[in-house]
């Protein structure tokens, strides 16, 4: 689907650009957009480098695994195919708590770490697993308690109650997160595939069969080592 959207947006843009006589603007926008992409990534470098360094310390100290053990019952329902004591669980939890507290800068690296851990138990490293899709759904819907940026902007423009949007925001984010979880469940059920497994195969396995590829060791191409 991403392939179609991407190609569609570009082709439609050129057609509209031709029809509106905005070809020059479209060409400009292509390179401007490319530049924005790089700028955003450069902005991410400092955050990712710092948090991933800090998280490596937490991992080496056994903190991530501890957090996973402690909170697993809550999240296990959402990620039935990830072993309860897998480090991915710890990162998923840190990612969700950071989102909740509105710490966007901290949430992204934790989410990426969670994805990298999930990738280690992915039998096919170029195809997303159901667990990855669930984690993504939670992050695109992103439950937020305090939308800090928006409150700051409203304050800037002299709002009488800059924080009055906290209540509707919470309502809306609960509804959209609920919708994301339901849709995710529905697709999970619809495309039942062999569940992902740890190479150790210590988990009780619902389908009973061991997926042949799960015993190879797929590692993340990036960041995994």
């Amino acid at each position: 689907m991403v392939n179609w959207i991407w190609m569609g947006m570009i082709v439609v843009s050129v057609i509209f650009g031709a029809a509106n006589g905005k070809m020059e603007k479209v060409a400009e926008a292509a390179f401007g957009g490319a530049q924005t992409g790089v700028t955003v990534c450069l902005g991410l470098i400092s955050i990712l480098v710092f948090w991933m360094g800090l998280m490596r310390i937490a991992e080496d100290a056994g903190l991530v695994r501890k957090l996973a053990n402690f909170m697993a019952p809550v999240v296990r329902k959402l990620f039935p195919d990830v072993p309860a004591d897998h480090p991915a669980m710890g990162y998923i939890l840190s990612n969700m708590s950071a989102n909740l507290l509105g710490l966007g800068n901290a949430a992204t690296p934790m989410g990426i770490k969670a994805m990298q851990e999930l990738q280690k138990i992915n039998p096919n490293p170029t195809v997303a697993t159901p667990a990855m899709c669930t984690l993504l759904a939670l992050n695109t819907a992103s439950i937020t308690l305090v939308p800090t940026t928006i409150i700051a902007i409203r304050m800037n423009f002299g709002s009488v109650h800059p924080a009055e949007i906290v209540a509707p925001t919470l309502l809306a984010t609960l509804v959209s997160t609920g919708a994301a979880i339901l849709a995710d469940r529905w697709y999970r059920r619809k495309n039942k595939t062999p569940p992902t497994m740890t190479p150790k195969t210590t988990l009780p396995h619902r389908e009973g069969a061991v997926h042949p590829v799960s015993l190879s060791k797929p590692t993340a191409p990036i960041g995994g080592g």
Partner: protein
Amino acid sequence: MISLIQIISTWTIPVLIAFIPLYASLRKVPVYESFIDGAKDGFQTAISIIPHLVGMMTAISMFRASGAMDAIIGLARPLFESFGIPGDVLPLALLRPITGAGSLAFVTDLIKEQGPDSFVARIASTIQGSTDTTLYVLTVYFGAIGIRNSRYALKVGLFSDFIGFFAAVAACWLLFGLV
């Protein structure tokens, strides 16, 4: 309540930054070396996202510059207004899932033009705050681990954005009254 949450969100990070190395030191982890090891991964990850973001940002800014987005919005406006949804908020429904910076710019502009306490600005603020940029999140998270086939993830994200848009309008109706 709100000030408590704000205190929590300003304190969490510094406390976390101090607590993690302290705890690790007590467990005899060589903290600085661990940090450097992990930090190297962070750099690799950021670099590996560049092609994904460049691809997406290019398509998105072309789409906006060509007038294609305006055309779609023009078509949908009468339909939305017949349901009592202010037409001015419509571009946001399209912008929000594809560009966080773009939609934030749009909301800021709307707040500036219509006043922060107008109904439209409240709806726009709610939409902006209640969801994340689906396409960006997908690009960054899956790009970082080299996923090429994202399966149904995009559909789920867009569906939740769609529901979230109407939920935001409904929540504002509910809490601020019909205007």
